[in-house]
């Protein structure tokens, strides 16, 4: 809420500019920003129109003679349709400044001299929706006689400065000028003073005929009304109007405006009804029934439901309680007798109704966050007093109580030592009590113990911690010296799985892969495309868009999206990975398990053309190399097996391998299926994905250091011709099985098929490395093993040794 300094001055000395005040209030209480109105306005005076004649050369312009406090009246050409003789209006004089850099200059309009401009409020920067309705399309007319030549900017309140407080939900006590005065007062150590509203006793009459019936007792804690007879409905005096439009409230008429004015003053919403439009002068507060409708001013009707708390009369809804009045019993220019209501409605009920009907506003905002139930009666008295002071009424009823809850101060007990210890400072009891007094609370002290009485206007405060917050903020956080917790030493660190994850990611980084972070909420296609764990999908109850509807079952779709995004922007060579969670929902459960996964994708060149290298595009074995290196770093003695699979739908059936340990699949490597690649606009791309939780579970091996071998190794080369369908993995496995104790390594150096090779066959070349760590190997020993190897290959795979 914007706190007007002109208004605040009624309660407090205001000794600083708004910038200073906003800054200080931000640091001690509520985030605030300074607002200065009318900084772009000048040369605005009151003008009195003493003659209006049609412009001789125009059918819509008028020549107005206007007194503006100078020797002679000035002539102003005016095109507003509501201009009339005798009006007091706003005149922008020759040389006046208006918003957006507009400067008014004397000149001729269709041959007639015009010495300035008669203005509408919107032309002075007041938003059109806050301008009184009858002046929205035309010039503004002062409601009463003003001195010609007087400063119009000041009269219109457009010279005001304000502190715009952005309140947190717990500080709704400052949604009224009085609450704000307490807050700013505590900040500057000034106690605000308020005039107690009083009603002329002679006008007060007994209530004889109004009946209040509270049916929804759990949602209404206070409901007070008064009636007033013989009101005159007109426009409000200027001092009320200007305060309303500065609060972004449109002035309507003196009765409605007075109610809104008191809402701003006290923070308590006040409603007014035309008493004569109520059936039998009866009001009921109840849950809406079938067929109840809320009639809005714009002619629209909203259907109400059983969840809506409504004010009704004769079965007709007068309003959605605490949210929006209906147009049914509205106060209009014909209204003679009124009913004024001050109430407290349940905040949650109001909030939900306002949300349900999309009608959040000044009134619901206050009920939602709570209002001071100690000021319900006083604000009603104030509203009635204000209306009476504007439009001298005939009589005012006594307060009629529908329901009332006793408002009592909250008592918070605390210990001075405990409060000091939680703040980390040492305030003396006197200093602490002084701060409590400054806040307008009263305290009793008994040694270390204090008992603080909190007035009802601070209904947010209930416990010692609330009191601590009040004391420390007024003491000043800037005066608080930082310390570090001084308790027992603790040993910090990561969890073992997180240490493990850090290791895996560092391998992939060292393999040149960039780390990405993708969204975990993805679309239906994406969540199904790589559901290799065959899990049940987990869907959001109310997704915002189809793009983010399901919890991912794989990290791969995100990576493919990244590659497509990059390749569309000319970043052709991409090597990326992500470590994150996927969601595995077991049949019959709602809550998915969160599995740690790591996945990578490589597309384009792994080696670039350069002055000394030629480019190479990624292939299966590049990615397999990355995966192997990562698995090596898991320091597991498990054997990772790669077996060809054509069972992963969007991967190439001939270039995909499952990775498993003891028959348990822990991940896969593969090339994207060509169709999938073209559908997703990516070049040839290889991906891998591994279950990190499973990797982590594998046993760690205990490394027992061995000296590096001192004896030389012997290498034999083996070239074979073998059927195309035999995998190198099978060959290598067999070589090891028959290679004897000294075969330590087998490296493939050649794979060839094509010309010179019989079709259906391929040629493979291996280096076989033999070594005895403890002795020099003899050729005979090696030859014996080599022969065994060859014999086995021939008999098992029918190879031709070349």
């Amino acid at each position, binding site marked *: 809420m914007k706190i007007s300094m002109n208004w605040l001055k009624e309660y407090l000395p205001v000794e600083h500019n708004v910038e200073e005040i906003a800054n200080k209030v931000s*640091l*001690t209480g509520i*985030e605030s920003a300074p607002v200065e109105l009318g900084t772009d306005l000048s040369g605005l005076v009151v003008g009195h129109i003493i003659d209006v004649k049609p412009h001789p050369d125009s059918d819509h312009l008028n020549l107005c003679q206007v007194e503006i406090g100078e020797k002679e009246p000035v002539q102003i050409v005016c095109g507003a349709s509501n201009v009339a003789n005798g009006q007091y209006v706003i005149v922008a004089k020759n040389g006046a400044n208006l918003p957006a850099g507009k400067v008014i200059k004397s000149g001729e309009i269709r041959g007639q001299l015009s010495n300035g401009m008669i203005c509408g409020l919107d032309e002075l920067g007041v938003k059109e929706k806050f301008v009184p309705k009858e002046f929205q399309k035309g010039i503004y007319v002062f409601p009463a006689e003003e001195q010609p030549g007087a400063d119009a900017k000041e009269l219109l309140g457009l010279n005001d400065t304000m502190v715009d407080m952005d309140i947190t939900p*717990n500080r709704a006590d400052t949604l009224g000028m009085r609450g704000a005065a307490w807050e700013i007062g505590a900040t500057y150590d000034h106690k605000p003073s308020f005039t107690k509203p009083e009603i002329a006793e002679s006008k007060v009459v007994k209530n004889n005929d109004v009946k209040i019936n509270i049916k929804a007792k759990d949602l209404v804690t206070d409901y007070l009304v008064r009636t007033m007879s013989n009101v005159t409905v007109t426009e409000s005096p200027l001092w009320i109007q200007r305060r309303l439009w500065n609060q972004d409230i449109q002035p309507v008429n003196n009765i409605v405006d007075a109610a809104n004015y008191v809402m701003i003053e006290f923070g308590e919403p006040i409603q007014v009804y035309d008493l004569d439009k109520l059936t039998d002068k009866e009001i009921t507060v109840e849950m809406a029934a079938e067929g109840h409708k809320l009639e809005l001013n714009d002619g629209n009707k909203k259907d109400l439901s059983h969840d809506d708390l409504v004010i009704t009369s004769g079965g007709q809804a007068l309003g959605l309680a605490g949210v929006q009045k209906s147009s049914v019993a509205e106060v209009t220019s014909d209204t003679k007798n009124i009913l004024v209501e001050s109430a407290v409605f349940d*905040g949650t009920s109001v*909030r939900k109704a306002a949300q349900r009907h999309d009608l959040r506003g000044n009134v619901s905002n206050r009920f*939602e*966050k709570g209002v001071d139930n100690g000021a319900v009666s006083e604000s009603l008295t104030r509203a009635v007093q204000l209306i009476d002071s504007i439009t001298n009424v005939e009589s005012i009823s006594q307060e009629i109580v529908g329901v009332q809850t006793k408002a009592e101060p909250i008592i918070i007990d605390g210990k001075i030592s405990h409060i000091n*210890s939680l*703040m*980390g*400072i040492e305030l003396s009891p006197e200093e602490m009590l002084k701060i409590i007094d400054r806040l307008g609370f009263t305290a009793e002290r008994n040694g270390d113990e204090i008992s603080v009485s909190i007035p009802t206007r601070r209904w947010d405060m209930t416990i010692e*911690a*609330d009191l601590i*917050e009040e004391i*420390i903020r007024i003491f000043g*956080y800037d005066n*608080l*010296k*930082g*310390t*570090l*917790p*001084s*308790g*027992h*030493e603790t040993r*910090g*660190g*990561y969890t073992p799985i*997180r240490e493990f994850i850090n290791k895996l990611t560092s391998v*992939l*980084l060292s393999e*040149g*892969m*960039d*780390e*990405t*972070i*993708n*969204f*975990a*909420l993805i679309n239906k296609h994406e969540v199904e495309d790589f559901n290799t764990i065959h899990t049940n999908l987990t869907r*959001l*109850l*109310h997704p*915002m868009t189809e793009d983010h509807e399901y919890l991912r079952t794989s990290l791969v779709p995100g990576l493919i999206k990244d590659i497509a*995004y*990059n390749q569309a922007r000319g970043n052709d060579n*991409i*090597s*990326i*990975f992500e470590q994150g969670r996927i*969601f595995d929902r077991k049949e019959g459960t*709602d*809550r998915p398990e*969160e599995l740690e996964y790591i996945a990578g994708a490589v597309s384009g060149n792994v080696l*670039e053309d350069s*002055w000394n*290298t030629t480019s190479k595009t990624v292939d299966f074995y590049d990615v397999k190399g990355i995966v192997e290196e990562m698995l090596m770093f898991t320091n597991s003695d498990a054997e990772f097996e790669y077996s060809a699979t054509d069972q992963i739908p969007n991967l190439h059936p001939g270039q995909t391998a499952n990775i498993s340990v003891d028959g348990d699949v822990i991940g896969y490597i593969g090339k994207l299926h060509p169709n999938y690649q073209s559908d997703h606009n990516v070049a040839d791309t290889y991906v891998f994905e591994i279950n990190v939780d499973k990797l982590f579970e594998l046993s760690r091996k205990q490394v027992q250091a061995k000296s590096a071998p001192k004896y030389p190794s012997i290498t034999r080369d083996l070239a074979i011709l073998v059927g195309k369908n035999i995998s190198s993995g099978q060959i290598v496995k067999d070589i090891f099985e028959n290679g004897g104790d000294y075969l330590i390594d087998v490296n493939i150096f050649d794979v060839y098929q094509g010309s010179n090779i019989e079709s259906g066959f391929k040629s493979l070349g291996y280096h076989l490395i033999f070594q005895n760590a403890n002795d020099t190997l003899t050729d005979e020993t090696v030859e014996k093993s080599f022969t065994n190897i060859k014999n086995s290959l021939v008999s098992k795979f029918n190879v031709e040794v070349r």
Partner: protein
Amino acid sequence: MSLNDKLKKLRESGIDDAKRAEHLQELNDLRVNLLGKKGPITQALRGMKDVPKEERPEIGTLANNVKKEIQEAIEARMNDLNKRMVEQKLQEETVDVTLPAQSHELGTKHILNQTVEDIEQFFIGLGYEVAPGYEVEEDHYNFERLNIPKDHPARDMQDTFYLTNELLMRTQTSAQEGRDMEAHDFSKGPLKMISPGVVYRRDDDDATHSHQFHQLEGLVVDKNISMADLKGTLEALCRHVFGAEREIRFRPSFFPFTEPSVEVDVSCFNCGGKGCRICKYTGWIEVLGAGLTHPNVLEMSGIDHTVYSAFAFGLGPERFAMLKYGVTDIRDFYTNDVRFLEQFKGVN
């Protein structure tokens, strides 16, 4: 010609030949030819018998000197030639050092993870454990245990993706507080933990909002934890992240699970507090929210709030990274353009 003159002449021509030699082979030949057994000096000395006896020692000395001098001339020339050859080789092997390197590029850790890890390392050094949490969380831990019952107005502040009425995508890493407090054995000492992770809100993605983003929660529970401890801890953190010169300030705020609650500003690292575009001319930048843990939150976790107190704080790695590196669009963190990612190589 006397033997004496012969030797002198041989010396002259021998030294001369050595000096003029262009190849090592020539010098070798010269040595063999001149100084060998069949060489002219040896030959000349055969004429010694004709020399009067008393002159013989003199001629002998001369002959040795001649040999020695020629030998020296050959060696000197050999050294020269060797030196020249090395120089020539070095010349030939000279490379253009401005040509691009043979690259062995490392990948770049995502800037958000770099930011998080930097903060983790800071807190690990202060004895904090890094606790992971769940991304799918119970309403109970995400809200109720944080003093945000159903229908609490604060639930408006964060719209939530629900999976069922009781399960949701966590909206805050604070959801981990309840779990860690109930799991901690306070007889073994205080609880000091941070919990980084991904959180989700029903926000439309734009330059400053993302439906998925990161948070890092911190919580310390012990006897005698105070607001001053919170301030000192966050002061040290902000100096670690934003520079040793930084100051922080607390402003009162509201979170349902802390009381008192504060928002924390750090003095502008760009202008040092004088005011600039980054700090919106205030000299201060809001970086995180914090407070003393609400007594209700402690009690719900079975911790006696009259014995223990606690502070908690929550920060946004996106915000930290955006401030520190001038990132202006939060979506850049999630589109993973490698040109964006790779500019952060090794910044933390």
